[in-house]
């Protein structure tokens, strides 16, 4: 059983996130961290590997060279090795360009199962798996809250707007897990100490045979045109109850067209 987990380094949750007005890209100069939602996917991969008794979990990512620091968290949790596509020409990739590069890296690995986390905390994206599955021509199930493997197929239970669906698909397949699927383990101290010496591979676009014109900003079909501040939050009103507070709340809700 070989499982690839697609993960991403994102600005640390506490960092002040901003889009650089010059490059119009997310400013990634600050502290980076493993996208918290990806830890659920790593955890699920480790559980599946351990339940199967053998196999390999490889984390696959795209990002600057220093993103290896964040991938190490997945290795400390127990993943076996890491593959990072780090190439200046890949910077600024949109969904289309990212899915192409990532699919090439996954084709090289030939995993039985590709896992994604629920979303990325920086772009609020929750779409990449479907594009990658399309490029790999494999079935995809998203938002999976319960995953079981049996023989050559997997069954996922997932929450939708209407309740729970149960979907089955043959392997190899692509699955995006919800964060309710498990509680990611804490890396053990031994895991943290051993992470540095696990195999960590950095690949260029050329290594994957991806033409630079199909990656990065060049290969992207969307663009950022301008940035602006969101409309200001209305003024803050505060009142002391003089016996008419309930009436005043109703008036406020009516004014805001909330009732």
């Amino acid at each position, binding site marked *: 059983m070989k499982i690839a987990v697609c993960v991403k380094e994102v600005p640390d949750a506490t960092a002040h996130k901003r889009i650089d007005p010059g490059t119009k890209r997310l400013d990634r100069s600050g502290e980076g961290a493993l996208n918290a939602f990806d830890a659920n996917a790593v955890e699920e991969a480790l559980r599946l590997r351990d339940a199967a008794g053998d196999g390999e979990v490889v984390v696959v990512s795209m990002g600057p060279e220093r993103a290896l620091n964040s991938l190490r968290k997945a290795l400390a949790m127990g993943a076996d090795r890491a593959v990072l596509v780090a190439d200046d020409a890949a910077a600024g990739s949109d969904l289309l360009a990212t899915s192409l590069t990532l699919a090439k890296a996954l084709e090289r690995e030939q995993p039985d199962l590709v896992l994604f986390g629920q979303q990325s905390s920086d772009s609020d994206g929750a779409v990449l798996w479907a594009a990658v599955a399309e490029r790999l021509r494999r079935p995809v199930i998203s938002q999976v809250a319960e995953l079981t493997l049996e023989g050559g197929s997997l069954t996922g239970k997932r929450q939708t707007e209407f309740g729970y669906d149960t979907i089955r698909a043959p392997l190899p397949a692509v699955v995006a897990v919800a964060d309710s699927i498990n*509680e990611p*383990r*804490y890396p053990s*101290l031994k895991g*943290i100490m051993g992470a540095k010496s696990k195999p960590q591979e950095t690949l260029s676009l050329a290594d994957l045979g991806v033409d630079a014109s199909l990656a990065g900003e060049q290969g992207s079909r969307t663009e950022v045109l301008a940035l602006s501040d969101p409309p200001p939050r209305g003024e803050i009103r505060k009142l002391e109850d003089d016996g008419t507070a309930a009436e005043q709340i109703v008036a406020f809700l009516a004014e805001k067209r909330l009732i």
Partner: protein
Amino acid sequence: MKVRPADYPPPFAPSEAIVAPMDPASERIEVGVLIVGGGPAGLACAIRLGQLLEDSPETAERLGEVPVAVVEKGKAPGSHLLSGAVVNPRALRRLFRDRPALDGVPTYGEVHGEAVYLLTKGASLRIPPPPTMRNHGNWIVSVSQLGRFLAEQAEAGGAAVLPETDAQKLLVADGRVQGIRTGDKGLGRDGSPLGAHEPGSDIAAKVTVLAEGTQGHLTGAAVQRFGLEGVQPQIWALGVKEVWKVPRPLRSVVHTMGWPLRKRAKYGEFGGSFVYPMGDDMVSLGFVAGLEYTDVELSVHDVLQELKTHRLVRKILAGGERVAWGAKTITEGGYHALPKRFHAPGLLLAGESAGLVNVPTLKGIHYAVESGIMAAEAAFRSLQRGESPARPGAFASYDEELRGSYVLRDLREVRNMRQVFDKGFFLGGALASAQTVTKGKLPPKDFLTEANADRTLIRTDRAASYPKPDGKLTFDKLSSVFLSGNRTRDDQPSHIRIQRHVPLDLAELWVNMCPAQVYEIGAEGGDGTVHVEVNPSNCVQCGAITAKGGRLTPPEGGSGPEYTLT
């Protein structure tokens, strides 16, 4: 009713933090030298050890797979580091002598100009800087950034730097320190394991170096266990600081004294502010007040907000934006509060947790680095000889070296300068000047001081003058805690030990003192007591509670603030 925080001691015994090794030998993690604390002292120690072991591979060989490890409770090295900071570069120069890393030390340049002001509410008087506050040629740094840099250097030198790892207990057996035990992760509020529970581990070490910074959790326990108490109890100050992006550069380092603090001795308000440039577009400013203060309404966070409304400071910040906030205590006991010895069998003490801070000069980072270097050299000497570092006196040379160095010489010179301010601002100021001029020979008698928690509380209308937060220049505590990047998991056991039913005065002291809004006053208990509600997840681990009647213990590793600019 006269209330002293010390009369309501926390439900915590230092002996709780000392245990014999628990894990079976087969599961124990073994390292050569274990350093607790990824700050300037601990990391300088790790870097120096790396240098020494590189030149002595046979010693490194004997230390096993992991010759040097540093455990750090913060999310990353630097996450919990906060200081002014203007650094005397002397010790860093020695650490990186003839090495390219010296040019890589992240600084905001040298201090070129300085100004000291005596403030009143409406005015400021520029006074000549006292000799202890002359900083020409010193480096302006963010100690948080310095920590990250030093951690990279330590790793490059072969040390294993282990963040998100809290040293919960000191392992002691056969009369010697054998390492530490890390805390559990994934415990629920009541202490029972949650789904992802990961138990703590013993880390066994030939030598353990405690470099925990202010309020060292294990240092306190070790000092008691090995009878290392100094002549006087340790005391602390609380500092709250902010970093601002500003449109106009500040050219000099600024210190202020006086307002908003009050001069009379009964208030016990000793402290001042600093405003330092950080390059052309940022300034760092903070307020530090000694925790011997008595007024239950004093809040250092709000005093800092008040200070910013002064014309002198407002001008510097005009058009700017606050980008960082944090709080931390500073060890202030000085020479008289130093431990009797800086070592015990298997153990070395370094940096601020060993009391190495010079209050009059507002410096401690170079002592931390220097003592870290010396601790590394002492550990190495012992390990190289292949002797047992547990032999009593094996580290006596560390003590001798430290005492013979400028570190202890400096501290001795200024030994009474901090204490005399118990006598109020003017008399204290005069006595301090006498000491400066005579290099500590006058006045001839040593002034002793009492523990912060021993001061009887008073109540004045202190809070009336705090400005109402406007969200632009002045801020409330909650939005500040947000800015600290704090994301302590809030369903873990509380790491703050206090008595929960206390007199109203003491509860109010905690509420106002805490810069992170951890304490709230709950239901009345009749008889003048109240219940204290605690929000441990707001805690930025400044340590003030330990000085004023409670006890901070380390929460789950990785908790707390994530400072990057402080």
